[in-house]
């Protein structure tokens, strides 16, 4: 009798253990390293928890561990971490990825991406182009590119409408300079300022002066770098004339991003550039702290002798983005996580934050709270998902619409490592000469001297190589 009872009890125990075993299986652990997404931020932890819960409900049991890497100097710290052999499953790069690809540490995302349910349709047009050329990084966000903004009340004070041509821009800059719009009794505002270099001006004036891409044909029909063309010369001469008339900040080269913003908020510059809708809204918010009620207006790219539009977009590769490690044992699970984030549920989480915190819901009606201003998508902004509520300013929305409407892929490409020194040297020569031309330290008739120096610094090698690549693509 006793033997029977023991046998019965042990059988029941074995059966019950067998029944619960699948539900007690350990979740699959994946490690994620990203910028501004850390376990020390309670919102990030809560966000990750609900993602895990949602995935678990769909049958994917993940334990997502965030690596705590400081945002300050992120790229450098990530580089050191990877070099020490600590390679998470999902890695956000902000540069330094090419070396990892060279060593075979990053997975080709193409095949896995094709198998996804949502992610493959969430890509923006530039993502698709970049993935074709470099299938290791994924950065599903709208294309970024500097666009100019001005205070609405300042534009109204000038009595001008938003500029449509290059000449209109000059007129606007003059009105800002001469109009004493900040009311300090001195005509000391610059029409426009930029940070570090002329890249921001290039974003609206390249097409206007006929600079259609990084590589252009010279009169002899050969591909050359656009920085050595007659169109570039005309553009730089235009910048120099802006500086000479006191319309362009002569100290742009020592102006860092924070100083650029400061000049805008304090009225020392009338126009600055924001690289995305989010950035334009940040400028707007800060401007209202200094000048309550102030609004920003987006200015369009001007029509010029060479055309109109925003500068061509580099589609050779993503300059930043998420990558999956080849040494990861859970690549499929990582892709499931990314696919979920591209789904409507994932986008609702990632774009709108938490209900009751960043937004409120009343039936089908959504309302955002002030906290939405500090919320940002940790994973992606899917191209095919529209939030149920709009909270960006008109200028921010316009900037997104303009950059998508004006999207033109550039013809640049990924350089082999052997050309790194030439790229570095020619970049220095270009930047240095551009400043000399703009500041008046060099005359525009020294252009040929600049081109000769650029070619000697490695530019000739770059031109030769580019011809082989672009001609091969045709």
């Amino acid at each position: 009798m006793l033997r029977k009872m023991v046998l019965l009890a042990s059988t029941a125990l074995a059966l019950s253990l067998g029944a619960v075993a699948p539900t007690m299986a350990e979740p699959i652990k994946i490690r994620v390293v990203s910028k501004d997404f850390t376990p020390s931020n309670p919102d990030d932890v809560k966000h990750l928890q609900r993602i895990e819960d949602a995935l678990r409900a769909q049958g994917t049991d993940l334990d997502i561990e965030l690596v705590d890497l400081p945002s300050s100097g992120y790229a450098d710290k990530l580089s050191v971490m990877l070099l020490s052999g600590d390679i998470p499953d999902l890695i956000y790069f902000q540069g330094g990825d090419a070396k990892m690809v060279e060593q075979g540490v990053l997975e080709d995302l193409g095949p896995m991406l094709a198998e996804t349910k949502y992610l493959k349709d969430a890509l923006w047009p530039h993502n698709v182009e970049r993935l074709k050329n470099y299938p290791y990084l994924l950065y599903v966000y709208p294309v970024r590119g500097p666009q100019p903004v001005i205070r609405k009340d300042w534009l109204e004070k000038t009595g001008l409408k938003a500029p449509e041509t290059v000449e209109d821009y000059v007129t606007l800059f003059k009105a800002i300079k001469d109009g004493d719009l900040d009311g300090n009794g001195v005509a000391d505002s610059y029409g426009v300022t930029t940070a570090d270099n002329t890249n921001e001006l290039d974003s609206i004036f390249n097409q206007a002066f006929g600079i259609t891409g990084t590589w252009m044909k010279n009169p002899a029909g050969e591909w050359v770098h656009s920085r050595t063309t007659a169109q570039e010369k005309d553009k730089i001469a235009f910048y120099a004339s802006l500086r000479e008339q006191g319309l362009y900040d002569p100290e742009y080269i020592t102006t860092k991003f924070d100083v650029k913003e400061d000049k805008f908020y304090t009225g020392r510059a009338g126009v600055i550039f924001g690289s995305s809708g989010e950035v334009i809204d940040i400028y707007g918010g800060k401007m209202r702290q200094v000048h309550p009620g102030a609004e920003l207006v987006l200015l369009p790219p001007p029509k010029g002798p060479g055309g109109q539009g925003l500068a061509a977009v580099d589609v050779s590769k993503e300059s930043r983005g998420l990558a999956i490690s080849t040494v990861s044992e859970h690549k499929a699970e990582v892709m499931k996580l990314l696919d979920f984030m591209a789904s409507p549920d994932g986008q609702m989480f990632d774009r709108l934050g938490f209900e009751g915190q960043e937004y409120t819901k009343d039936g089908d009606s959504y309302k955002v709270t002030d906290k939405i201003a500090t919320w940002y998508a940790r994973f992606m902004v899917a191209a095919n998902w529209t939030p149920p509520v709009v909270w960006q300013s008109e200028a921010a929305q316009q900037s997104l619409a303009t950059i998508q409407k004006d999207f033109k892929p550039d013809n640049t490409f990924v350089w082999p490592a052997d050309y790194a020194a030439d790229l570095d040297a020619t970049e220095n020569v270009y930047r240095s000469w551009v400043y000399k031309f703009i500041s008046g330290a060099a005359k525009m008739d020294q252009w040929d001297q600049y081109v000769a120096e650029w070619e000697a610094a490695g530019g000739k090698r770059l031109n030769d190589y580019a011809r082989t690549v672009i001609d091969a693509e045709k």
Partner: protein
Amino acid sequence: MTNRDEAMISPKFGNVPKLSARRRQGRLAVAADGWRRWWPYYVMMAPGILFFLVFHYLPIWEARIAFEQVRIVPPNIWVGIKHFQVLFSSPVFWQVLANTLIISAMKMVFFLPVPIIVALLLNEVRGGSLRKFIQSAIYLPHFLSWVVIAGIFIAALSPTDGAVNNLLGMAGMAPRSFMTDTGAIRWVLVFTEIWRSAGWDSLLYLAAIIAIDQQLYDAAEIDGANRWQKIRHVTLPGIVPTIATLFILNAGMFLNADLNQVINLSNDVVRSKIDIVDTYVYRIGLQTGEYSLATAAGLFKAVLGTMMIVIAHFVSKRLTGKGVW
């Protein structure tokens, strides 16, 4: 070793092992006694020793990647001196090395005397509260980061509304864009370094001055020496060992032209004049991922630094009779 010792360990003495063992025991006893007596000090020293071992000596072994091709997924591949060949055949490296030598030499020549002069001047200030105020004021910049200092100097040297150019304008001089002037930017590095560190570095010299025997000053006073003569014949000779030691230690760091300073004060126009070995290593190593090449550059710099210490030691020994060993 004395003749007696040699005689005792000679094979003709049969009791040599016995004596040696006794000596060993004696030494052990001395060591044990020393440990019992001084162990709190050894314990206090331990974190420092550990720090140097972990952060200064172990990395020397890791410098072997200068001779390897680093693989993120091991093993690394041995490539011998390939990276050094690449480095030495690069015109950029020689340019940054030249920049480093020039900037470091300028800093050494123009910076070294300043804290000594500041310490001598501080020592002559008689009012206690005035002296404390001056000390605090000149130490303060040491606690500012280079980001802040760069912001201050970019604003102060602005050709349009900077304080320096305003002063030049009042003196009838044309404004000058120091931050974009390839002839001036190295001097900006030297000056900002002096502004930041001279006050702090003067502490060491001030401590050395305070340690000089007061009787020497009293004797000089009796001999009729004035203030200047006391400085020249008592104070300066009294701090020569400190000056020599710091000079030699600074020589070891001769090629450390300060990465943070250069990065924060650099711009596209002047980069070619102030691009130094450290910025090159940072760019090549951390930004482009050429770790082995960057380590080769760093190792080369470290070897030069060691040579500088040795040379400085012998020069100092010859000139002042003082060295680091």
